[in-house]
């Protein structure tokens, strides 16, 4: 049952990512992007990483996707007549994507990861208490760096906003 759910959500995420890339309208692209994020978070939950799936839903749909929608709304008065020409170099992009896909397939097939995954795969659930304990004991330097990065992001966005007001 769990394997079936994982396969279903993986197929949904792949299809919605393809539709997101192929859409010419940005609002449709954003919608399919949200579907991709939801299905990936359900994949995370299905394989036992419950906390990661919930963080993905909260952070991406509550933060990133809303930010994208705000950006679309704020630029709604823009004339999108040139959007049909957004595929500037589709052949190059398709060729590079196909080469990258072949490379990744070769790497995964030649390594032992897929064999180990088929032998060791289990949907054991990881407790958030264990992750939190490791974050604050073993990986606290990375946690501090991430918090400083978030602070720098807030200051950077404020600086950009101030610059925009001065321009006006």
């Amino acid at each position, binding site marked *: 049952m769990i394997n079936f759910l994982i396969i279903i959500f993986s197929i949904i995420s792949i299809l919605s*990512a393809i539709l*997101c*890339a192929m859409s010419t309208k*940005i609002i449709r692209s*954003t919608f399919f*992007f949200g579907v*991709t994020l939801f299905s*990936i978070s359900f*994949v*995370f939950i299905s*394989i036992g*990483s419950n*906390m*990661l799936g919930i963080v*993905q839903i909260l*952070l*991406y749909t509550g*933060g*990133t996707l809303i*930010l*994208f929608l*705000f*950006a679309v709304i*704020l*630029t709604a008065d*823009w004339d999108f007549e*040139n*959007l049909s*020409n*957004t*595929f*500037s*170099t589709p052949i*190059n*992009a398709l060729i590079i994507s196909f080469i990258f896909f072949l490379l990744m397939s070769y790497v995964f097939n030649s390594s032992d*990861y*897929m064999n*180990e*995954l088929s032998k*060791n*795969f*289990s949907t054991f659930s*990881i407790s958030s208490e*264990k*992750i939190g304990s*490791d*974050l604050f004991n073993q*990986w606290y330097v*990375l946690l501090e760096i*991430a918090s400083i*990065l*978030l602070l720098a*992001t807030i200051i*950077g*966005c404020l600086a*950009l*906003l101030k*610059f*925009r007001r001065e*321009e006006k």
Partner: protein
Amino acid sequence: MLLSKKHILSVLIGIELMLNGINLIFITVAKAHQSYMADIFILFILVITACEVAIGLAIFILNQRINKTIDIGELGSLKD
């Protein structure tokens, strides 16, 4: 999307999709080793992604207001 689209939001969505793919590879390799380390690193990747989107969208709005364009090729004129 990174190579073929001119719209800045499409490029940002492409970067997000690539980072989600990296997350999936991380969790796959960690599951192969019966490890939970990928959960911790994916949390950091999510933080970096949120920062990147916030800055990217701020630059997008700025570019749209100043240059009156959504073309990523016109971003260079912001430094003038």
